[in-house]
């Protein structure tokens, strides 16, 4: 059993950072949804707000770690070009996928979509975290703001989920070794 350095980064990027963000989403959205006056006592709000601020800020940090490690560490290995005449493409995932008609779409659609859409997630997640940290308990009295934040959060999750699912399939078809 062996895990290479590159595979370790792939795991850190997708299975640790990426999956952590996706798993944490449900906690964040429930926390945001439940910021309603009818659900909370003053004491309960104080306790919940502190937790929610830490939760969403951590989520934003984790999704930034996901896109930065993906774009600047794992992706360069994925797109590396083989020297002319190379026949074994197993360490060149992009070239490997493009070398066969039945796998080319994993790059042309899958990777092209993933590498770009993923960057919308940290932007939207940062906005959500910022507003929650700045407005804090006032959000209980701001149903419109809560609704807008939930919409942003769902879009951040959707962008990250698209990238995550496509990443899993691409890694299955042509892993970074």
């Amino acid at each position: 059993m062996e895990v290479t350095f590159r595979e370790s980064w792939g795991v850190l990027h997708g299975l640790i950072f990426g999956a952590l963000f996706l798993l944490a989403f449900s906690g964040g959205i429930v926390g945001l949804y439940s910021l309603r006056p009818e659900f909370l006592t003053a004491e309960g709000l104080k306790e919940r707000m502190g937790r929610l601020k830490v939760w969403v800020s951590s989520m934003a940090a984790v999704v930034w770690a996901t896109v930065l490690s993906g774009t600047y560490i794992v992706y360069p290995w994925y797109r590396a070009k083989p020297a002319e005449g190379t026949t074994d493409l197993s360490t060149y995932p992009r070239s490997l996928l493009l070398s066969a008609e039945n796998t080319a779409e994993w790059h042309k659609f899958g990777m092209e979509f993933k590498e770009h859409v993923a960057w919308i997630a940290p932007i939207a997640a940062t906005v959500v975290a910022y507003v929650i940290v700045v407005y804090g308990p006032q959000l209980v009295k701001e149903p419109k703001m809560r609704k807008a934040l939930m919409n942003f959060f769902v879009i951040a999750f959707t962008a990250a989920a698209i990238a995550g699912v496509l990443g899993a399939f691409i890694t299955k078809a042509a892993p970074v070794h």
Partner: protein
Amino acid sequence: MTTETLLKNGKAAAALLAGGIGALVMGLLTTISEGVASFSTALNWYNPAGPLSGKTTLTVIIWLIVWAVLGKQWKDKDVDFDKIAMIAIILLLLGILGTFPPFFDLFKPAA
């Protein structure tokens, strides 16, 4: 008895609108890069990551500048939050559309 001072909604509106604009910029840069090869080459700021490095860095720079400007303008104001939030969501969705390959492929020059 204490009186509670509520923050104006401008800061939140600025963050949301800037986020929407940031996403739109990502979508636009992606689509324009597909259609204009020289633009894509110009965005190759870090060779190992290729043009993606320029697209993402430029997106983040523009997003943060827009956020700073709007935040300064609106920090002590109440603005039309519903309208701005709706525009921000539409911009976010347009940003996602711009990163969708069947969409940006429409702008690729014919081979």
